[in-house]
């Protein structure tokens, strides 16, 4: 299983390259072009990373994060959510790059292979920027009455957070 997962990414890379080459795609040119696009993506997220990692590491140093976590711990722990990840859950539906900044700070602070670090990563990977997406889609389609779209989307987000915490406990019982 571990080997299978470890080989997934290189396997996909080679698989996609062979598939593309067979279909007559200039694979190398596409790869290099796409990698350049990756730099643009990075340049877009760096400003938010700076802003949010600054704010969260200040919160951590001030002791406010522990205070908040301590205060909310009884409520959040009852449903299986670690209170340390509350800043991530608050920012996630609002801004994607900001959530990445908060998540990256949590992952670095607790360690990427710790339980909290993994939970933060899985939360980032299994949820989306709900309010941004809703406003872009309904704005483009000229919709003013959004009916049940937002409640349904928030149900999905909440499930994503709960399921992320649960799935990490399930797949990494020891860590």
């Amino acid at each position: 299983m571990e080997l299978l997962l470890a080989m997934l990414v290189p396997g996909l890379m080679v698989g996609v390259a062979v598939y593309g080459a067979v279909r007559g795609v200039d694979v190398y040119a596409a790869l290099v072009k796409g990698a350049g696009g990756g730099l643009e993506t990075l340049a877009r997220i760096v400003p938010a990373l700076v802003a949010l990692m600054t704010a969260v590491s200040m919160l951590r140093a001030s002791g406010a994060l522990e205070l908040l976590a301590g205060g909310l711990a009884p409520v959040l722990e009852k449903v299986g959510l670690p209170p340390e990840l509350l800043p991530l859950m608050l920012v996630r539906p609002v801004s994607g790059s900001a959530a990445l900044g908060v998540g990256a700070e949590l992952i670095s602070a607790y360690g990427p292979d710790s339980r909290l670090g993994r939970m933060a990563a899985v939360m980032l990977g299994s949820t989306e920027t709900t309010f941004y997406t809703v406003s872009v889609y309904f704005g483009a389609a000229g919709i003013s009455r959004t009916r049940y779209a937002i409640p349904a989307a928030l149900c999905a987000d909440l499930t994503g957070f709960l399921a992320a915490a649960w799935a990490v406990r399930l797949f990494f019982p020891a860590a």
Partner: protein
Amino acid sequence: MSMTILWTGMAACALLCGLATGRGEAVAAAAMEGAAGAVELAISMAGVLCLWSGVMEVMRRAGLADRLARALGPVLRLLFPQTAGDRQAMDAAAANISANLLGLGNAATPLGLEAARRMARRSPGVASDSLCMLVVCNTASIQLIPATVASVRSAAGSAAPFDILPAVWLASGLSVGVGVLACKVLARVWRD
């Protein structure tokens, strides 16, 4: 605006709390370290992010998204029964969802907006059941390979950055499942 409130609130709360607990200097140092750490992290995640963006560009040019979109046809008819008659809206929605699955975010949004505009033609100003479903499918993450998160983990020194994939798939699947279910249930009971 909401990010303005969140960010300012976080920074002000940290400053006040730090002064109150006598950790003012630590807060000042953390502000500098956080900012410097962000750029260091960005540089160390650049390699994985660029590599995966390259692989995604190959996927796009090889037409993988189109194949996936065709394979998704039957599922989409279940998700958007009212739109099944509108071929172009269905094609755009299928292309949007398959681009999301492959993580082609830049390609997914214009396709999704095209589908949304077509779905909105039948009920101007009011979100139809199909449109609500399309929006919920886009606000839930269905990306199969969360490359950005993996690049953050790799930059932070993870032994196996992709070992979270099964957990991500399970959590995404549950989240999307609940979103779709919520849409189907609310479509029946919602009174406006």
